[in-house]
Structure formats: structure tokens, C-alpha cells
């Protein structure tokens, strides 16, 4: 993360007529019907919509977990749509951190091991994986729970581990798909405070949610309905809570 909070000239993410359909013939489902927008580097964008509105499809496309049916997607000015498998893997490993609703931690691994997992797939072999993982876990407030396994931690703690994992390779962009969907209100706000803190330090952040009070943390809101953007508004973000800042 660059220490300063600035908006770069080149957009971090750019979508042009991005479309995704599932199935074929009469069964065809239009998940995304050609959306165009760009997200600047350092922005904090909330993507809202009911289930089936296409917001998760968009998150998967931006996270390079899925491929668009048509249209163009550029991340960091690189055309994702035309990348090879290995290039996509590198993108997922180096440029993008993905945070899942269900955390997706490896049950048999400790917090440390979970956070170190992406480093296994990094070509850079002279990094001190353990030091890096410890630093990231410290950053999300779990410096004391390095050797806990997921089943020894609360949902909020597990999601923090997942965030530390998403950050471990120092990505430019973090995409969180319903990061608070499996958490209670208290934990939800702690997670959002953590994420918006990271954004303030320069991280481009995209949060998929259907809860307005989660979306309120963002400084831009994209609202989806039936696979299209129906609203794109900039808003005054809710500041991270004082409680989170002291931790």
C-alpha cells in the first residue's frame, strides 16, 4: 500500500460492456447485461443489489474467478479478458485479494498457515513468509492468535484471518463478497472498520453487500438490478469507529 491516499490517473478497474450469461438457448440467464464503469485506484466502492442482481457475478469477474461472456475488463490497465490461465493465476495471487462470505479458511491449518498459503504460489522465493504473515495478522488484530485453528476462533476472528490472507501479497485491490454476511452486527462493524482503515492507507476496496449500513462505509455506491447498474452515487463515507481505531 502506498502511504498516501491519492487517486491515480489510470483507473484500477475498468469495465466496458461487461456481460455474463449462464446456460444456453431458452435456459439462458443474463447475470450481467453489459455494464460499463471504472473504479479509481484507492476508491472504496460498495456494490449493492438484491440477490440475482448480478453483483456477485461482477465480484467474481473482477476477482478473476470467472470469465466474462463478452465485453472488456481491465485491471491495472491490463486486459483481464485476454489473459492466459497462468497470467490470471498471477493476477489473483499478486494484484487482487478476495474475501469470501464464508471465510474459506483451511480447517486443518493455523491462522499463520492460512495467511501464508498465497505465498506458496508466489514466484518470489526470498520473502520471509512467516514474518510477513505475522505482520499481516498483527495488522488485523490477531497477533496473539497466530497458532489458532479456525474452529478455535469466532466468526469475526476468522474473517480477520481471511482478510490478512487477502493482504499478504500486498495487492492493489481487495474484493470482499458479503464479508459480513455470516457475522453478527458487532463483528460486522469491526470488520468494516478494519477494511475502511485499509482503504484509507491506499487500498482499492470493493465490498459486495445488500445491507445499507455496510454500504454506508464506502465513498461510492453502485446499485445493481437485473444485471445492470441502476445507480452510481458518491457519498460521504461513514468514518471507522473510534473503537476500531484504538485497536
Amino acid at each position, binding site marked *: 500500500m502506498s502511504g498516501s491516499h491519492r487517486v491515480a490517473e489510470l483507473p484500477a478497474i475498468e469495465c466496458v460492456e461487461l456481460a455474463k450469461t449462464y446456460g444456453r438457448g431458452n435456459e439462458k440467464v443474463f447475470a450481467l447485461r453489459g455494464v460499463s464503469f471504472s473504479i479509481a485506484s484507492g476508491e472504496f466502492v460498495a456494490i449493492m443489489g438484491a440477490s440475482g442482481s448480478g453483483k456477485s457475478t461482477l465480484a467474481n469477474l473482477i476477482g478473476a*474467478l470467472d470469465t466474462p461472456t463478452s465485453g472488456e475488463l481491465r485491471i491495472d490497465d491490463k486486459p483481464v479478458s485476454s489473459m492466459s490461465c497462468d497470467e490470471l493465476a*498471477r493476477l*489473483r495471487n499478486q494484484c487482487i485479494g*478476495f474475501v469470501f462470505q464464508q471465510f*474459506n479458511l483451511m480447517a*486443518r491449518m493455523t491462522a499463520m498457515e492460512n495467511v501464508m498459503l498465497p505465498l*506458496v504460489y508466489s514466484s518470489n522465493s526470498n520473502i520471509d513468509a512467516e514474518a510477513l504473515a505475522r505482520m499481516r495478522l498483527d495488522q488485523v488484530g490477531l497477533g496473539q492468535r497466530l497458532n489458532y485453528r479456525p474452529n478455535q476462533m469466532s466468526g469475526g476472528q476468522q474473517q480477520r484471518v481471511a482478510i490478512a490472507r487477502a493482504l499478504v501479497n500486498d495487492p492493489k485491490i481487495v474484493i470482499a463478497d458479503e464479508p459480513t454476511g455470516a457475522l453478527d452486527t458487532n463483528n460486522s462493524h469491526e470488520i468494516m472498520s478494519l477494511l475502511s482503515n485499509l482503504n484509507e492507507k491506499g487500498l482499492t476496496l470493493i465490498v459486495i453487500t445488500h445491507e445499507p449500513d455496510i454500504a454506508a462505509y464506502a465513498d461510492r455506491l453502485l446499485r445493481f438490478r437485473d444485471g445492470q447498474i441502476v445507480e452510481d452515487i458518491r457519498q460521504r463515507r461513514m468514518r471507522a469507529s473510534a473503537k476500531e481505531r484504538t485497536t
Partner: protein
Amino acid sequence: MTFQALFREAITALRLNLLRSALTAIGVIIGVSGLVVMGSATAGANKLIERQIADLGTDVLIARAVKVENALRRGAAVMLTDQDTNAIRELLPNIQFLAREIFSNVTVVVGNTSWITQYWGVDASYADVFNVKLSEGRFFDDAEVRSNAKVVVLGATVTRKLFGALSPLDQTIRIGGVPVRVIGVRAKRGSIGGEDQDNFIILPITTARAHLPNSEMSNPRQLSLIDAKVLPGADRDKVKRDLLALLRERKHLQGSQEDKLDVSDLTQFIQMMNATQSTLTWLLSATAAISLLVGGVGIMNIMLVSVTERTQEIGLRIAIGARKRDILMQFLAESVTLCVLAGVLGLVLGVAGSAVVAHASEWPLIIRPSSVAVAFLVSVGVGVLFGYLPAQRAAAMTPIDALRRE
């Protein structure tokens, strides 16, 4: 991903399903141990044969009249006699030692113990022809052959059957009712292909002719075999040809009547042993191969289950940057690790099995480095061969489908 990291991951994954991994490995364990036992048995048996050949020497020729089975031609059967031996001694200077031999079955008795064995009635030179080694006592000499001496040399098996652990020297045994004094025991020779090489007694040929009835001998001067040792330095094959030619001439055999006489040497014996050996080797190899095949299919099956169970894990790994080949390698490493561990166990079991087989067959325990290498390579091979399809299936998953699957 480094080799070490792959291996560590594989061990962790296998340990999560320890029982399942162990059960899956059984086929490969059995297959590999079969290969090791086979390698060791082949080497051990060959060593034994070599040792026996070295004892006897490869320059021994054995002449015999071939039995004619066809009743119509029986009248034309030839017979080796003492006169043939005399002629050989006169005409073939390249033969160093020559011994007459007759043999048949006989019952030997000591006290209340009796034992059916084969007697060999021979000249004293028999000991020179076959380089006979004794564990006790001595062989009989020419004077004893000339005087029909009632002396006998026992094979190790006969000694054990009649005397147990006691020394038979100077004891009297009854052979066909005739009391004969034991003067020597031949050193143990072991068994070849399950056939005991120590079940015999050796007597002077004159004694055998005088006292032991032999239904196969229609002439008092008839011989079962003529045993000859080629003079060192002489061309064995030429001597063999000369011996056969001389005997054929003496029996007035024409070209077409070749099958009535036979001169063999130990190379033929070696070839015969090798043929038996290679049949055995093939059989064992086939068994081991089938076991490995079945074991391999078991590995493939369990790896497919493992891949299906861990679909979400695969999805996550792809989502955080694993390439197709990382996933492929992860699962290949798992099946190869399983197979190599099975291979190591199979090797240990195989060595133990080889020791048992070697002990039972009385041949030396030989584990060649090559069979250890083969065991290892086969294990890796089975792991790669049967792990590839499941690993390929894992690597072909798209992250979104893998993550969604429950």
C-alpha cells in the same frame, strides 16, 4: 511450490485419512514386496546353481544311452558297457578322469529305521570327476573297488534320516540286506528347484554289481552312465564331439540314429535350470504386476474421492493464485508420496519375505541394489500413472465452480 512444501502438504493430507491411505496402499505394498522377493529369489537360485557348477566344474561330460520308449524300436536300443570305458581311456587322451556309474533305487536300514534312496555304484575316480567334497571321513579308493569292499559314502539327507545328529562313520547300514560300513559323508549340496541334491549313497561299482539287484541292467557289464572330466586346457566341445563320435562308432550308429546316445555337459544343465528359473520369474513378475495394477487402480479411485472431497479447497487455492500445474502437482505429489511410502513398506516386507524364502530354499539371501531401485521406480511410476487422471481432473476445475460446490 517447492518439492519440500509439496511433500509436506501430501503427508498432511494423507494423515488426515490415515486408515484410508493405509488400506489403499496395500495393493502397492504387496506388489512391490512381490517384486523384491522375485528379484531376491532369482538372484539366490542363480547363486546356488553357480556355486554348484563351480563345485562340479563345467568340464564334466556325461554319456548315457537314451532310453527308447517306442516298443517297436526297443530291440535297437544301445547299451554302454565296461568295454566302452576301456576304449575311451585308450583313445581319448584329453580326458583326465573317467568313471563308470550304475544307479538304481534301494532301501537302506539302520536298526528300526529304513529309508528309500538312490545308490550310485561308481569307480574311485568318480570323486575326481565330480570334485566330491566330504564333510566327514573319506571316499573309497581303487583297491576297495577292485576288492568289492563293502563300504559306502552317504549323502547328507540319508545321514540325517538314518543317524540324526550322530556321526555315521564306521557304523554299519544294511543295503538290500547286505551290511556295509560307512566310511564318509558327502558335504551338503542343497536343493535346486525343490529337488533334494543330498538323497543318495555312493558305493564301489563292483560292490553294487555283486550285491544289489538291478532290474534295469540286462548285462553284468552294463553301465548307466560314463562320467568324464576333460583335461584342463583341452577344448571341451571338441572332446565332447570326439567322445560322442567314438561311442557312436562303437555302437555302429548311422546319422539317423543319433537319439540313442547322448553326451551332455553341465552347460545343458545350466540352460535347463535357467529355463525353469525364468518360468518361475515370469510367474512371480506377472503376480506382482497384477497386484500393482489392482493397487494402482485403488490409488486412482481414492485420489478421485480425495479430489471430489476437496473441491472447495481446490477452488480456494485457485482463487488465491494457484496455477493449474500447482494443483496438478499437489495431487500428483499426494499419490506419489502414498505410493513411495507403500513402496518402502513393500521393500521391508519384501526383504523379510526374501529372507524366509532363502532360508526355506537354502540359498543365500541376496538383495541387489537394482531391485531396491526397481521397487522405488515402480512405486513412483504407479503414483504418477494412476495419480495423473485425478490430479488432472482437479487442475481442470474452474475456481468459481469449485468454490460453489458443496
